[in-house]
């Protein structure tokens, strides 16, 4: 077997290796209670909600923010790529905010996407985040910058 054949075999082996194959991109979907009149948020508006700076919808109703527990994919993506905070920074940020009495509490923690879906469908003004392959029934999908998760240029595809 000459050197070129060996090289080809190596390339084919690497390409067939499952670990080499790229993970398909997933999108974070922003879901809200169906009673929320708004249909779209800008990235900046969403950022303010995540940081507790916006606590009321334009209609006046209060926003109840639900976020998955640590080590979930949704939380990792939200903190790391959307908010650009580490888990420790996120925790200290909210503890400081409650300590200064700026807010009564931090985001509520949900233990699963099913739990998020159930609570968001029931609680007026509630908002949460799930992967695009796990969007539950009974909730409304919020557009981001006027785009739905399947649209080209949707900002939260990772």
């Amino acid at each position, binding site marked *: 077997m000459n050197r070129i054949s060996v090289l080809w075999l190596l390339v084919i082996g690497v390409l067939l290796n499952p670990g080499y194959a790229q993970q398909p991109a997933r999108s974070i979907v922003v879901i809200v209670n169906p009673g929320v009149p708004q249909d779209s948020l800008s990235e900046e508006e969403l950022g303010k909600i995540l*940081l507790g*700076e*916006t*606590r*009321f919808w334009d209609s006046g*109703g*209060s926003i*109840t923010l639900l976020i998955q527990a640590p080590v979930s994919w949704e939380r990792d993506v939200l903190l790391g790529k959307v*908010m*650009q*905070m580490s888990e*420790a*920074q996120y*925790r*200290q*940020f909210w*503890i*400081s905010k*409650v*300590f*200064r*009495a700026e807010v*009564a*509490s931090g985001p*509520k923690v949900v233990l699963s996407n099913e739990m998020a879906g159930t609570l968001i469908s*029931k*609680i*007026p*003004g*509630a908002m949460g985040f799930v992967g695009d392959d796990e969007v539950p029934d009974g909730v409304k999908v919020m557009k981001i910058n006027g785009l739905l998760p399947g649209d080209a240029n949707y900002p939260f595809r990772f």
Partner: protein
Amino acid sequence: MSWRELSASLSSGTVRRMEVLQASVSGQEYKGREMLSLRLGFTGRVVTAMATCMVSLMVAAPASAKTLLESADTLYSLNLLGFFHLDVGEHLDGADQQNGPPIDTGLQQARMVGHFTSQLGPRISAFMEVEGTATEESNKLRLERIMLKYDIDNDSQIAVGRFHAPVGFWNQHYHHGRWLQTTKDRPLQTDFGGKFLPGHYWGGMYERRFSLSSHTLELDLGFGAGRDSNFSAPALAARVQSDIGFTAQLNLVPPKQLGLGFGGSLWLGDLEAAGRSIDEHILTGHIRYRMSVATLLAELAWVEHDYAGAPGKQQNHAGYIEYNRRLDLLQGRVNPYVRLEYTKIDEDDPVFSGLRSRERRTLGSRYELGAFSAIKLEIRQDRFRNDSQTLTSVQAQYASVFWW
């Protein structure tokens, strides 16, 4: 009884109950006659009027049954946040314990601070902070803060109650939250038990936030009952009394509090002691540059006392600069820090007669034990200006936070 009369009586009753509650839990500091004294002068009327507005809004708000029953607020009604710290220290040299100035040594204190917050309605929330402190001399339980807040919109709130005075950066951002701060103790200007800078005050507060591009401009306006009653000057025959205080604070905050921020605050108040009337003027300014692994914080405070009928004014000032940086060492758990600070007290100012001008240099490190607890170890050198006495001590603290 009309709703207007009802809300007025409710509000004055609420103020009275809040004061009595505060006095009852801090009974070691206040005498019975003082406990029930309501300052129903001009300040009292302002506080009562603001409380009346809050109660009126509650009474008049068109809250439908659906809102009350299905609101998320009824699902999550009580939230708890607490801090705990334990302090120890020991002299290394230069100490004359009998005649020397007081320096914290030994098992200084163990303190637990609990915060209770509750969303009472879509826009109304209540907040209470209770502090328990054990020292060698005494045990104290004290109501630190209590407030009722109303969210006008996303950018503005009004509140009545007992607050951390928004004077200076440290008092509002850390106060008793030792886990939040990198160093073991507060800077000298905030560490005099609310004597140099006001620690708390009763009254009303209006908070407004303005968006400026990526930054936020925060405005706090407060009006109330002046300095808190734990303020006292040993050289004066009578306890210092303060009836009116106005405070304004303006802060420019970077996004996610990362980057350059700065701000300042103003305090105008009155003091009365041994029949003498004193006007108090305070100005503070701070600058904070916070990066992902390091923070630089510097603050200056200036306090002026103007005695009625006396020539001249007493000027006092203080400041500090602090730098800390998290190292890559041990998974980023090690966070060394350095702080330089000073206080300059006018020796002719009777109000600050219990304080001494000094300089302090601190070198230490914080180590994260886990997600919610840390230990801090530092070497501290205090130099007193009047006699050039220098004291060196080693200080340590365990600090933790818990919330659910």
